[in-house]
């Protein structure tokens, strides 16, 4: 025994398998983990390494270099082994030279299953998102049909999109309720008739804190602020030659409104911490679901900026105003989810269609998509019936009635703070975690909203 017992014990405790190899790469000594990790059953002493570890086939030259002292270490990271339950175990396998004459090579197998499974999940998510984004990009190929519908307002938009797509430096403002497809239209304008290889850069002004937003947009030089350890180009530079899409522009803080205006006027800007003027060539598309005119009246949005942004105005109609388009779009989603869920739903029943047509769709196409997705999950046959369709919101009249109900205090009384906290939770949920949006749902300023979040430790 070359490996002392205490090392042996320590290795076992730490999920390490090891073996010593002789001059012809036979195993001379190993611990139990070694055979366990390699899925072997009995003692493997005297066996050739390549007989029991297929990963070693092809490594002859590397191992020879180790014998010849030309190399002292060699690692195969994250080697996979399928376990009986089809789960994967992961091991790092490392070869070391020992400078012992009879056992010149030492192999360690280190079990890294736990952390690697976590890494696997993260990587998988990242790749899946990239694949999905790629697909929506691909869908741009079938353009301009991807803006579905035949109603007058939709046809008009398709024409506009076709038209402005041809103009490289156009400045376009999209307005429409949330869920009406502003981001899709921006992409269609960017792509024109074919998939564009020029950059399309999108940023949601409401999703990023003010301090970061400026650096994101304009970029910065090393040392421009405390954490600026390196220089970084901003989104304006990244979009050069292509399109910059500023979503929820109504949430752009006033200070940045000034900077953006100056950029639009001169088509040049400086990175934070830099004196160098940079010029870029971009198509600028901005969008908002808020009433900017109202904001201008309240001095929350600069009028001069708005006129610069609003050179071409495209107004996206709410779904409830597009009539039969609702059915066309719903059918399209059915086709899409048939593929995703491997189902074969052929149609909507007459009642189901009527139900969709009667609803007021506050969440627009996005909501329609969710409703159809849910219906598809529950639909059992080849038809979606009205029972399969669950609508989330009450009609405006019914909604008032419920507020009355909420505000009726039960006989046992109720804690005011509990209601407040519940409202914060619900608003955040409705706004998908976007605090500015959630604040607006409760008619609160961003600060007032944040104050309450902190008070109740909601975040």
């Amino acid at each position: 025994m070359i490996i002392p017992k205490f090392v042996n014990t320590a290795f076992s405790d730490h999920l390490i398998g090891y073996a010593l190899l002789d001059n012809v790469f036979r195993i001379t000594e190993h611990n139990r983990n070694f055979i366990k990790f390699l899925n072997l059953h009995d003692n493997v002493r005297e066996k050739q390494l390549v007989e029991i570890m297929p990963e070693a086939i092809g490594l002859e030259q590397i191992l020879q270099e180790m014998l010849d002292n030309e190399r002292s270490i060699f690692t195969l990271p994250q080697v996979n082994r399928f376990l009986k339950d089809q789960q994967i175990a992961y091991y790092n396998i490392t070869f070391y030279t020992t400078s012992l004459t009879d056992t010149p090579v030492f192999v360690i197998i280190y079990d890294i299953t736990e952390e690697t499974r976590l890494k696997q999940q993260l990587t998988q998510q990242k790749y899946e998102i990239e694949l999905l984004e790629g697909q929506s990009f691909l869908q741009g190929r079938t353009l301009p049909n991807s803006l579905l519908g035949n109603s007058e307002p939709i046809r008009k938009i398709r024409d506009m999109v076709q038209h402005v797509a041809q103009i490289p430096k156009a400045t376009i403002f999209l307005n429409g309720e949330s869920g009406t497809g502003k981001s899709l239209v921006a992409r269609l304008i960017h792509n024109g008739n074919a998939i564009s290889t020029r950059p399309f850069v999108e940023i949601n002004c409401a999703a990023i804190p003010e301090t970061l937003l400026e650096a994101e947009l304009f970029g910065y030089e090393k040392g421009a602020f405390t954490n600026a350890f390196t220089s970084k180009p901003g989104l304006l530079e990244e979009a050069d030659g292509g399109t910059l899409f500023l979503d929820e522009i109504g949430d752009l803080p006033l200070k940045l409104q000034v900077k953006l205006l100056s950029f639009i006027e001169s088509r040049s800007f400086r990175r934070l911490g830099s004196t160098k003027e940079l010029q870029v060539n971009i198509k600028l598309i901005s969008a908002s679901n808020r009433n900017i005119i109202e904001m201008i009246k309240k001095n929350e949005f600069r009028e001069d900026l708005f006129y610069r942004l609003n050179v071409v105005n495209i107004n996206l109609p709410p779904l409830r105003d597009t009539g039969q388009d609702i059915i066309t779009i719903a059918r399209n989603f059915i086709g899409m989810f048939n593929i995703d869920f491997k189902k074969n739903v052929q149609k909507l029943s007459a009642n189901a269609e009527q139900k969709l047509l009667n609803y007021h769709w506050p969440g627009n196409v996005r909501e329609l998509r969710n409703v159809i997705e849910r219906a598809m999950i529950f639909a059992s046959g080849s038809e979606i019936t009205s029972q399969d369709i669950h609508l989330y919101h009450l009609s405006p009249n019914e909604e008032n009635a419920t507020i009355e109900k909420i505000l009726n205090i039960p006989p046992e009384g109720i804690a005011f703070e509990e209601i407040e906290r519940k409202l914060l939770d619900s608003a955040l949920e409705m706004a998908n975690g976007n605090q500015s949006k959630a604040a607006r749902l409760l008619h609160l300023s961003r600060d007032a909203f944040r104050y309450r979040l902190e008070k109740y430790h909601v975040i």
Partner: protein
Amino acid sequence: MTIQINRKICLLGMYATGKTSLIRRYVHNIFDEKYLSTIGVNVSQKLLPPLETSNNKIVQFNFLIWDIEGIDRNNKLQKNYYAGSSGAIVVGDLTRKESFEVINGLLSDFSTICPEALIVLAGNKKDLLIENTDHPQRLKELAAQKKADYLLTSAKTGENVDELFLLLAHKIKDKL
């Protein structure tokens, strides 16, 4: 008399191009729509049918097929996977143009470590190919540039999968 020879080959390519799926189709004749991205490397074996060499010997390869994670060129240790390979199948996804753009860099890393190895290119997911896309064209150009052969494959339908591995086997055999 048949001579049996172990040969290591690698499958390389961007994530989700279908490396794992091609191997599973070839080795076990199965296909799964579900994507489970590979981390690290998974080695499978497959005994190929006997092949005749130019000097009338019969050889039979036992392929050790290294299924390597979607390439991360910053990972230095990843290159350790290549050591001792006789060949590589480089896989692109016919539905994703960008999966062909990484092939050049990938091959140059691989060839630095295995200059003698033989290369075959695969344009996978042929079943999803939309008429008139230019990706096969890109594959053709790459193949010409690298003086490598290529095949359009589908791990889903099995089209050209056996042929892909056999093509590489023949090239390795011709160099014996």
